[in-house]
């Protein structure tokens, strides 16, 4: 079908609408004015210096990184066997397993956060840190399973069968043949789950408290009281990191596989 000028106009409009705000944050983070403003006034790196020297942000950043790494690690650990079973075997209850691993996507994350808070934290079963980690792991598990599943499906079964017919046990074939061959899929699954966990607000919202807070939550709280460009500076830092990750990932496997 011929694509009219109108379509291209809408595409340009959509991109301006999607990317414009980033340009504004970026320029506002160098502004000399005390409150967030656009167009920016003058040029300063003050807000960047301020942000990277505030213990509040540094601690939250560390916690966010820790949670994201641990949760991604556990999600992969839990996700690999399920993805493998789903890709290679047909078994009784396969549909249930598929449902159980996609279920966390369907439940609104705030709802899950509230449930975990009430059942685990308020009843004193787990500490808030542990519950936060559990929550993040659950939320990113479906992404991990889906990405690993598709990379196992892309690996021909014959490769594995060749290893088994040459005398390797199924377990040995898995560790020596399957795992190395899906390493790109595993790395990108890790990156995706890491980003998802790192940026998450709704599940963390109820599972953070004094001393245990992730970066997005601390940013949100800070914004309630201050209206200065330091959040813009922090946002700029995070966006630059994300840009780096997105381009690395694109080099690894192409944009179509990111989502």
């Amino acid at each position, binding site marked *: 079908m011929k694509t009219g000028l109108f379509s291209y106009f809408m595409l340009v409009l959509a991109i301006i609408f999607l990317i414009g705000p980033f340009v504004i944050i970026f320029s506002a983070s160098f502004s000399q004015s005390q409150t967030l403003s656009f167009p920016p006034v003058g040029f300063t790196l003050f807000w960047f210096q301020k942000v990277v020297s505030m213990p509040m942000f540094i601690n939250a950043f560390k916690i966010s990184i820790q949670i994201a790494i641990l949760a991604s690690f556990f999600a992969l650990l839990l996700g690999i066997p399920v993805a493998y079973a789903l890709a290679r075997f047909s078994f009784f209850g396969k549909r249930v397993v598929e449902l159980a691993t996609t279920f966390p996507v369907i439940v609104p994350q705030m709802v899950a956060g509230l*449930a975990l808070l009430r059942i685990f934290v308020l009843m004193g079963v787990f500490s808030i840190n542990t519950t936060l980690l559990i929550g993040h792991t659950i939320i990113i598990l479906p992404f991990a399973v889906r990405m690993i599943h598709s990379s196992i499906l892309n690996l021909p079964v014959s490769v594995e069968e060749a290893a088994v017919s040459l005398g390797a046990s199924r377990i040995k074939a898995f560790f020596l043949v399957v795992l190395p061959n899906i390493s790109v899929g595993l790395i990108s699954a890790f990156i995706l789950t890491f980003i998802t966990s790192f940026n998450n607000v709704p599940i963390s919202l109820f599972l953070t408290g004094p001393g245990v807070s992730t970066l997005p939550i601390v940013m949100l709280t800070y914004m309630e009281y201050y209206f200065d460009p330091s959040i813009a500076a922090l946002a700029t830092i995070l966006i630059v990191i994300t840009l780096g990750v997105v381009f690395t990932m694109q080099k690894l496997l192409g944009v179509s596989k990111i989502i």
Partner: protein
Amino acid sequence: MLLVLPTISFVVVFFLIPLLMVFGQSVYHPPGGWTLWPYFSFFQDRVAREAYFRSIYIAFWTTLFAIFISYPASSAIVSIKNRSLKTFVMTLTVLPLMTNPVARTFAWLAILGRHGLINKLFIWLGVYKEPVRLLYTEGAVFVGLLQLFMPLMILSLVSALENIPEDLFLAARSLGANGFKTFIKVKLPLSKEGLIIGGTLVFTGSITAYVTPAILGGSKVLMLSTLLYQKASVVLDWNMATVIAVIMFLTTLFINGLLRRVGGIRKA
């Protein structure tokens, strides 16, 4: 079976059971037994009822506008012949999805604020004399949500439109259909699944989003999510918070099922 057992037990113990327990607590009160009273009282409360319908209303408009902008935009993306340009455009649309939602929403403060871009522009143009309040309005929440979720719509539409062979349009045209008819009879039905999936993602996303209504709407434009947070963390009314959570969950399930039925999609 042994392979899936640890993961399934993890999901059941740490997710399914807490959810069921909390849901149970909302309808079971030891002395009186089972009751649906909390749910009635939710809809009797004017503030809660307004927040509920406001959430649905804003989510509806967000979805509609997302379709209106994304459909032509996705058609344009699909028709780009240059591969590296196409990848670049796709990256630009995916980028917002990968960035921190707090950072993303923050930008709108600089655009919609009292001394923000739009107010400055309008005063400079002479439309207004004084800055007008744009933040903490339903419009602000709508714009924020649209920017947040439009990439999901574009992604699902692009993947739907890419699977339609170009020949079909040529065939329709050669059989005498005009451009409009080709669109209605060929392109639209074939991209229906993309529309439904995108619509589900945008609609449910908008109903459950917290950050955007919290920053751009505040307590002036309460939505279901911000009301839930208020009840749980400010007022510490756990029962009400749970009731809101259940209503939120059931609403998203219902919308999911409804849209799938409309689109005739059977597979999950």
